[in-house]
């Protein structure tokens, strides 16, 4: 009897998490809408064209994309219930994500040190908030991955751990999808 409830749990939780991801899309859409409206309000300061370092952003994009791929490899290993492979690919995903984040932080840092901070103009406020919110999500994902790795290592493939690995992979893929749009609309379009 209890078993039936647990499998039901999986499909319920998957749907619930998916609905949450949809709400997160609306959150990002609000920030995108604001960015779209305010991106030209540079208040005499620099526009994106002048401060975006496109090659660096391209590297960040490839890093994140690769980590999305390695997350897929995590899920394949979960399917085979191969604990060590899962931990390996999870660690690689984590490292790629952390590299992405550190590049982003150094990008922000150099902008601020050059005098272009979030306080300088509406454009910069909306830029830092949109990209920064994505970065915060990445940070949350890294924390989550760490906890999951620990749980997997200590408890093995329990129902909860397996389900949560699946949810994490969804979350990480979703973050890469959001990044596609940040990359395109903020950075690529911004340098035109």
């Amino acid at each position: 009897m209890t078993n039936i409830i647990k499998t039901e749990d999986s499909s319920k939780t998957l749907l619930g998490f998916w609905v949450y991801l949809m709400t997160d899309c609306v959150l990002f859409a609000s920030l995108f809408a604001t960015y779209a409206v305010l991106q030209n309000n540079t208040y005499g300061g620099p526009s994106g064209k002048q401060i975006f370092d496109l090659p660096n952003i391209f590297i960040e994009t490839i890093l994140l994309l690769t980590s999305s791929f390695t997350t897929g490899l995590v899920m394949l290993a979960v399917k085979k219930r191969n604990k060590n492979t899962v931990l390996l690919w999870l660690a690689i995903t984590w490292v790629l994500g952390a590299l992405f984040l550190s590049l982003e932080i150094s990008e922000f840092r150099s902008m601020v040190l050059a005098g272009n901070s979030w306080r300088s103009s509406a454009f910069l406020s909306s830029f830092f908030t949109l990209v920064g919110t994505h970065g915060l999500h990445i940070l949350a994902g890294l924390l989550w991955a760490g906890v999951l790795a620990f749980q997997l290592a200590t408890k093995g493939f329990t129902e909860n751990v397996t389900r949560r690995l699946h949810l994490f992979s969804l979350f990480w893929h979703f973050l890469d999808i959001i990044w596609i749009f940040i990359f395109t609309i903020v950075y690529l379009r911004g340098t035109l």
Partner: protein
Amino acid sequence: MSTDTKTNTESIWSYSMGFVLSICLTSIAYLLIRQNGHNKTTLVWYIVGLAMAQLVVQLVFFIHLGAESKPRWNKLAMLFMFVVISILVFGSMWIMNSLNYNHPAMNMTDGEVIKDEIIKR
């Protein structure tokens, strides 16, 4: 979407294919912008189109959307999300741009106002 049902889309093939396609789409967009060989509007259409393509690639190859069994609530939720964010983003852009009509932003010139009001000189 369930890890326990047989979904033949969740395979090394799908992830690798998705990865390669995404790299290509990203690189093409990046190179197009670096070369800056077309006019701005065309380039914007290209990169947005490439982004949409990559969205579909990742939804199919990474997230396996469409492989789940009925009822397809995930698809419906996503559809509703797209409707809402389209209305929100494009609606806001339309509204805020029109508001500039009465309070012209610094980059809006007199010429635009005259054209809009079809003022004859």
